[in-house]
């Protein structure tokens, strides 16, 4: 993607047709790697999603899938290794050392870069989380290789190159990007873009342990503390099974209560389109879409949302999309599964009531019997 000058997607002659001539020094780069992100003792689910995707790429290339676990010595790392095998890794590289207890760029970038230089993967995938993006950017720069951010699709081309597809121009278009003459080919993928893979029945794999070539005294940045979000009621939209969202069509900040009421009645998370965040009607962590969260719920109900492409890319993975909009020609009806052309402000309370009736203890008993 062109980040320079005027951001033209340059299909300059010569560029689109670039042929692959992999320099000799890269010829022995093989295997697909997935970086496993540890978040307060647990593996971030995006890492499993990536292992699922990595498995497909590795199978196509007929190479191995390896996980990379960086962390402090102990249980946390061992658990992550077991999880990596359970989600399909053939092999796990571990660097465990005390400086890797909390994420900091320096020791993590050093550990990952050293691993890559030693074992030479041809593809390296990371989650497009704050950690993954922080790490991927410096590792790619050190390795002087290509990095494609926030991919929505990964595939292997007929000549074995990684074809990484990502939204461009604020989501209005998609582009497919190759890293032809450099290795590894690096990409990040946002949480919930790829489906969660099945766990493997009897996971087995090899472990390769490495040392960190850095000690605490070499590291300039120190961690002073951590304030977890669960103490501040932050939204966990990305992993919610049911999401109700409101858009500008709701007209006023007060009307968002209607969305929250419905969400509460069906045990859902609530979210919104971007203009609502810009107006200060909802906090930024509730925004769904290209510059907000990608969601993958079983049910998504969108009220008063037009369905602009930047919103669409964030919700397309939902199993069932229900749209409520006064405009029968709103773009959201092109990708929703069920649509109602009506005033959401009047309809949301009715829907909340109907759900409450349907899900009342009485009908729940009926279900159980």
């Amino acid at each position, binding site marked *: 993607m*062109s*980040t*320079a*000058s*005027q*951001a033209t997607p*340059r*299909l300059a002659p*010569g560029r*689109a047709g670039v042929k692959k001539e992999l320099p000799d020094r890269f010829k022995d780069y093989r295997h697909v790697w997935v970086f496993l992100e540890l978040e307060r003792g647990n593996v971030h689910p995006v890492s499993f999603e990536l292992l699922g995707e990595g498995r497909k790429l590795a199978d196509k290339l007929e190479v191995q899938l390896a996980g990379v676990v960086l962390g402090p010595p102990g249980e946390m790392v061992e658990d992550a290794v077991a999880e990596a095998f359970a989600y399909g890794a053939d092999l796990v590289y571990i660097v465990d050392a005390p400086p890797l207890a*909390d*994420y900091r*760029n320096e020791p993590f970038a050093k550990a990952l870069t050293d691993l890559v230089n030693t074992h030479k993967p041809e593809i390296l995938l990371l989650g497009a989380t*704050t950690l993954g*993006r*922080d790490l991927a*950017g*410096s590792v790619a*720069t*050190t390795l002087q290789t*290509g*990095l494609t*951010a926030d991919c929505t699709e990964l595939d292997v081309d007929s000549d074995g190159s990684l074809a990484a597809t990502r939204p461009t121009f604020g989501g*209005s*278009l*998609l*582009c*497919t*990007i*190759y890293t*032809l003459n450099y290795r590894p080919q690096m990409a990040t993928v946002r949480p919930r873009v790829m489906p969660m893979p099945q766990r493997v029945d009897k996971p087995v794999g090899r472990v390769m342990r490495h040392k960190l070539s850095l000690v605490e005294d070499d590291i*300039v*940045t*120190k*961690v002073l503390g*951590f304030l977890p*979000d669960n103490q501040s009621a932050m939204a966990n939209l990305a992993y919610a*099974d*049911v999401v109700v969202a409101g858009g500008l069509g709701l007209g006023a900040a007060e009307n968002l209560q209607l969305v929250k009421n419905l969400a509460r*009645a*069906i045990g859902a998370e609530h979210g919104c389109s971007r203009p609502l965040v810009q107006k200060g009607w909802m906090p*930024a962590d509730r925004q769904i879409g290209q*510059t907000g969260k990608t969601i993958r719920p*079983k*049910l998504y109900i969108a009220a008063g949302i037009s369905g602009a492409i930047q919103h669409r890319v964030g919700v397309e993975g939902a199993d*069932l*999309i*229900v749209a409520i909009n006064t405009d029968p020609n709103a773009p959201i009806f092109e*990708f*929703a*599964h*069920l649509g*109602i052309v*009506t005033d959401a402000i009047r309809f949301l309370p009715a*829907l909340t009531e*109907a*759900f409450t009736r349907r*899900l009342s*203890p009485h009908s729940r008993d009926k*279900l159980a019997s």
Partner: protein
Amino acid sequence: MHIVICIKQVPDSAQIRVHPVTNTIMRQGVPTIINPYDLFALEEALKLRDVHGGEVTVLTMGPPMAEDSLRKALGYGADRAVLLTDRYFAGSDTLATSFALSQAIAKIGETFGRPDIVFTGKQTIDGDTAQVGPGIAKRLNLSQLTYVAKIASIDLKTREIEVARRAEGGTQLLKSRLPCLITMLEDTNEIRRGSLQQALCAARSQVVKWTAADAGIDDLTRCGLRGSPTVVKRVFAPTARAESAAQIDTAEKGLQDIADELIADILTRRPALEHELAFKSGT
């Protein structure tokens, strides 16, 4: 204190339309803006200058017309503007961009004094990669503080900085060393309104214009298309889904009936949901 801030002129992508037939971008008349995230960084830089004194230099790499953005930044109160512009930069990906910018920052350091902090926005709204900041930090060997929500303190004597940074699942409090590179989060600051005097100054002040050679870049193979490992092979519009939404008929029905019908429809399509919703709403 010398602060360098990297900004980018971007098309106001809210106004970009894709040609329905040719799938190409219709950019005629699309206005350009300063990447909004960069403005948060600029405001933070100006606030730090208010407190600690010193100078703020804005830097952009782009075509000659990117000078407009620099003038705007001067209007907000930046002290100096540098435009890095050369046809060799055309088509740069993030690796080539961070190379060119880091070279220019090094040159700014030699010319106007070494920066204590380099700022970027957390990402651009057109590229969206968040990679250029980390790339610059790595090349200049600056400690890297990304997704910073708040600068808690700076001690110019001990050269220490404390920041709160957005992390997965929470906020990390970090202490690091100057010089550093900071990428700034969105919800921190509104950009100030520049004074009339600043606007007048901005209109009059010189923008420093550097070519690749001026910035001391002698290896042009690391710039532009040639210096970009990533290659855009194909640009295309997302495919439309074949069928559009099944519409529930709302004519001559009460809202409750429509709601019941919708719920029935949802649960027919996804029967497993009934149990799940009942369970969740009960908890």
